[in-house]
């Protein structure tokens, strides 16, 4: 079979599969169900391939056997296999508790990391959030634009920046206060700040929505390009 023919065949089936999945938009139907099951099957099969070729072969098997003649084999890795197998006791009425051993180890490793990464992740953000809210100069309301500001000008907080920083800080604090659960909101101030926190959250979410829409639409457009241009025009009609 000529490469071009194979390519066209490959494209064609890709298109059919795509359309097949799209039909669910109208309603769940046999055509969709067929491709859904093909999809699930292929995915499951691929998982079984990848788990060995991508994960276990590199990080387990070749560690035991020693990847190439030079390296050494660390046989103790083999001990992980029985531990993993203990998970399979979950279906036994009597010994299902043993399935908690591998799970426990995985959970333990995960939990330990949480304690390790917390400050690494949020420390810098906190440091970046403590912005000066008093202007250091009133020579101009906004940052002097146009010509490049002198280092001295650059090192100033102009009233406009101060206001922005204030908004930033207020948002941060009111959002944080919204997530206080164990305080009875009798306190008027706290009540208001949580309400405001919720509204400011919505602003944030709205902005996310806007920019996410762009991506989702682009992916759809790309699919359409795949169908109409790459397959239909180039593939079938050999145009362009």
């Amino acid at each position: 079979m000529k490469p071009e023919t194979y390519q066209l065949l490959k494209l064609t089936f890709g298109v059919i599969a795509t359309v097949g999945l799209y039909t669910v938009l109208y309603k769940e139907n046999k055509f969709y169900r067929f491709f859904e099951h093909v999809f699930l099957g292929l995915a499951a099969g691929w998982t079984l391939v990848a788990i060995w070729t991508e994960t276990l072969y590199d990080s387990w098997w070749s560690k035991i056997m020693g990847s190439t003649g030079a390296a050494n084999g660390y046989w103790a890795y083999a001990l992980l296999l029985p531990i993993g197998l203990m998970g399979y006791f979950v279906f036994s009425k009597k010994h299902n508790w043993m399935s908690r051993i591998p799970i426990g180890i995985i959970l333990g490793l995960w939990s330990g990391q949480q304690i390790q990464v917390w400050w690494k992740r949020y420390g810098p953000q906190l440091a970046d959030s403590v912005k000066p809210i008093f202007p250091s100069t009133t020579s101009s309301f906004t940052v002097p634009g146009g010509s490049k500001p002198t280092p001295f000008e650059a090192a100033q907080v102009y009233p406009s920046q101060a206001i922005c920083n204030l908004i930033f800080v207020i948002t941060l604090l009111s959002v944080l206060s919204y997530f206080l659960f164990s305080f009875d909101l009798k306190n008027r101030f706290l009540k208001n700040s949580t309400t405001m926190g919720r509204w400011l959250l919505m602003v944030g979410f709205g902005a996310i929505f806007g920019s996410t829409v762009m991506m989702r639409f682009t992916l759809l457009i790309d699919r359409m390009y795949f169908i109409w241009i790459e397959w239909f025009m180039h593939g079938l009609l050999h145009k362009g």
Partner: protein
Amino acid sequence: MDPTNLSLAEKLQSLPKSALYIILFVATSIPLFFTIPIPNKESKASIDFYQEVQKVPEGSTVLIASDWTNATRGESAGEYKALLRILMRKKVKFAVYTTADPQAPQASKDVIRFINDERVAAKQKPYERWTDWVNVGYFPNGEGATNSIASNVRSAFADKKDFSPDGALHPVMESPVLKNIQKVEDFPALIIVTGSNTSNVAIERINSLPILLAVTGVMGPEMNVYYTSGQVKGLVTGLKGVYDIETLMQKDYPDQVNLDNGAKYYPTLHLALVVLIVTVIIGNLGMFLGRKRSEA
């Protein structure tokens, strides 16, 4: 309920889903067949990205993390193409690695092949594997790999191999691209093109050289945090970003192929967004009409 005896307000509020879907389907198909020039105003983040890439000295080697696959082709491919075009025109070498997905290297290779064909067609010298670029490949454990790249890139890449012209595998570190690299700081920049959050992993662990990001639209807001805090020097977000870069390229390389995915998709995006906005407006209009009726 029977649509015939619905008031206008109710009709406006209950358009059938299938109708909406068909409209969107058409709106995203038709414009693809035409090329419509769109005026553009580049965002500062994109301009910074472009200028940072332009700053890279000719003949040096940049490190590229190509962490995208077919799933986000729509945005990432455009970003990657534009990036490679600039690098190749500036004769900058590059080493590509990924921590995201075993399929990512393939996606990147396909794009490089595509652009090489384009260069051959334009009577330019194609970019040779091994001498002009190397494929470092896929690292399963992202965090660990990124850590070791940050602390000692030579040992991190030590057991990675790529094809030299003689068709055999050799350690990438022996390639002309990487042989002068001692530590990660020797790269003038790390450029991450990603469709997943591998960028956070890199930003958290690598801080000794300028990082440039080309991300998908959904990650834009998240990554913008790092851009404003200066941890990231330039940020290209989604299709708008791609179009920004392409228009910027038009100014510097007027006589070459610059407009690609960005220019192809951007008009369509406009129409799609208009459809979305209009439907939302219709819905609200219907609601207000309904209110009026109930008040009257």
